[in-house]
């Protein structure tokens, strides 16, 4: 899928002909689909280390991510929509993670929770077995900082992911938009 997408910051090469209402049905259907997808993110039960405990805290009564409909945690990747990489990924785990990601049916999303999953975190230097960031293995949609991140941070990440899905933009488009805003 090597489709080159023009970032929205660049002007469209050509003229846009406005159609009288033709696109409404398609675009609103897209909106409905994105609404459904964003509100029904079922996470995969996947926790490697400390962050898994904070993920469990997020599921528990005080933070309760079931309010957003995330509580249907599936043990099998076939039925999951979002994989929350909660913890360090080491070299031995990397192929497993890739396989889990491959086993998930599209559309699928990834949240890298915590410093380890983002970059290797505290295990960046002088370790022979830690993968320095899960994005070396699978594409990540949302990164959460912290070691481990607080449950609120994970909730924020999930809501950010919802917004991302609702916006309907691709990864490249979002990147372009962020560049345009100077982030």
């Amino acid at each position, binding site marked *: 899928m090597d489709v080159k997408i023009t970032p929205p910051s660049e002007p469209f090469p050509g003229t846009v002909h406005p159609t009288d209402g033709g696109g409404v049905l398609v675009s609103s259907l897209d909106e*409905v*689909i994105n*609404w*459904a*997808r964003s*509100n*029904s993110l*079922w996470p995969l039960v996947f926790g490697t280390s400390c962050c898994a405990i904070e993920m469990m805290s997020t599921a528990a*009564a005080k933070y*309760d991510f*079931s*309010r*957003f*409909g995330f*509580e*249907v945690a*599936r*043990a*099998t990747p*076939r*039925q999951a*929509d979002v994989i929350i990489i909660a913890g360090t990924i080491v070299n031995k785990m990397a192929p497993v993670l890739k396989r889990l990601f491959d086993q998930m*049916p*599209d*559309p699928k999303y990834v949240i890298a929770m915590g410093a380890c999953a983002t970059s290797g975190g505290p295990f960046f230097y002088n370790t022979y077995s830690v993968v320095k960031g899960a994005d070396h293995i699978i594409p990540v949609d949302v990164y959460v900082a912290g070691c481990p991140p607080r449950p609120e941070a994970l909730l924020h990440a999930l809501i950010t992911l919802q917004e991302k899905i609702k916006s309907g933009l691709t990864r490249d488009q979002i990147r372009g938009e962020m560049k345009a805003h100077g982030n």
Partner: protein
Amino acid sequence: MLRLENISSFIHTSLSNHLSETSVLLLEMTIIALAAITLFALLGLILVLMERKVSAWIQIRLGPNRVGPKGIFQTAADTLKLVLKEGFVPDGADKFLYKLAPFVVMIIAMILLAPIAFAKNFAIWDLNIGVFFITAISSVSVIGILMAGWASNNQYSLLGAMRSGAQIISYEISAGMAILSIVVLTGSLQISDIVASQSNGWWLFKGHIPALIAFVIYIIAVTAETNRAPFDMAEAESELTGGFHTEYAGMRFALFFLAEYINIFIVCAIGATLFLGGWMPFHIGNWEAFNHIMDYIPSSIWFLSKTFFLIFVIMWFRWTFPRLRIDQLLQLEWKYLLPISLFNLLLITLIAIKGWHF
């Protein structure tokens, strides 16, 4: 008054005035099919939401409350997402059986809907062997699960399917015995007869303690038959990750998910019909005024509230008890429930012959 039987007879008469008998039949069948499918979808949405709300309530949480007012569109979003998810067949699976299995499970759940009396004089097909029909059909649903487990080519699925096979076939007997005890009391297999026989009191109360025992056994057996915790051997999330539906995704998984809840609805509806008087209002002896008020409530409301009460009880089980082990599960059936229900059936027969019931 607006009652479901009036609506159905109104539709029937207005159609008969204009069309021939055959076309009326065909048209009515189409209407019923559409109504059944709509009911299915609605029930699925409501029951899944109810499960999530009940679990949240038991687990001191809030439950879904962001999607729509009070979160009522949560399950709609889930369903839509599942339908739109990538559907695929895993490598090495038996493609035909893999695709067939969810539909088998679903269709069986649908067929079971036929003889249930939703309200006074309102059933799709009030056949004279209604109870027999239900027991016969419901035992077929195991085939769908076995099919799914075998076709997935996954050890977990296979184990789950085998467990489910052993479990459903075992508990079918107890459930059958419990149903039979009411049949003995009523002397009829027809659902409408059974409901009519409870006009002066529900069998749960009329049948003394044996009926109560039969009711308890029925609830335990159907919890097992629908693969619900504490008997969720077939799925056993912490042991077999997903049991027979481990390899299912998207739409096909949604069908399994839906079928589970429809099955719960059906077994609870049957339980309500047999033991709690179906659509019969609750009457107390000769409290005329009270009975009159009870009569005023539509029969469909009575039926649904009884059914949902039983559904709530089954959900309550799920969120309270730990799971049994497979051998304990079979032991419970063959060593305890089956002898008890056999003996209980004898007692009930005695009661029925001697006319000791009210």
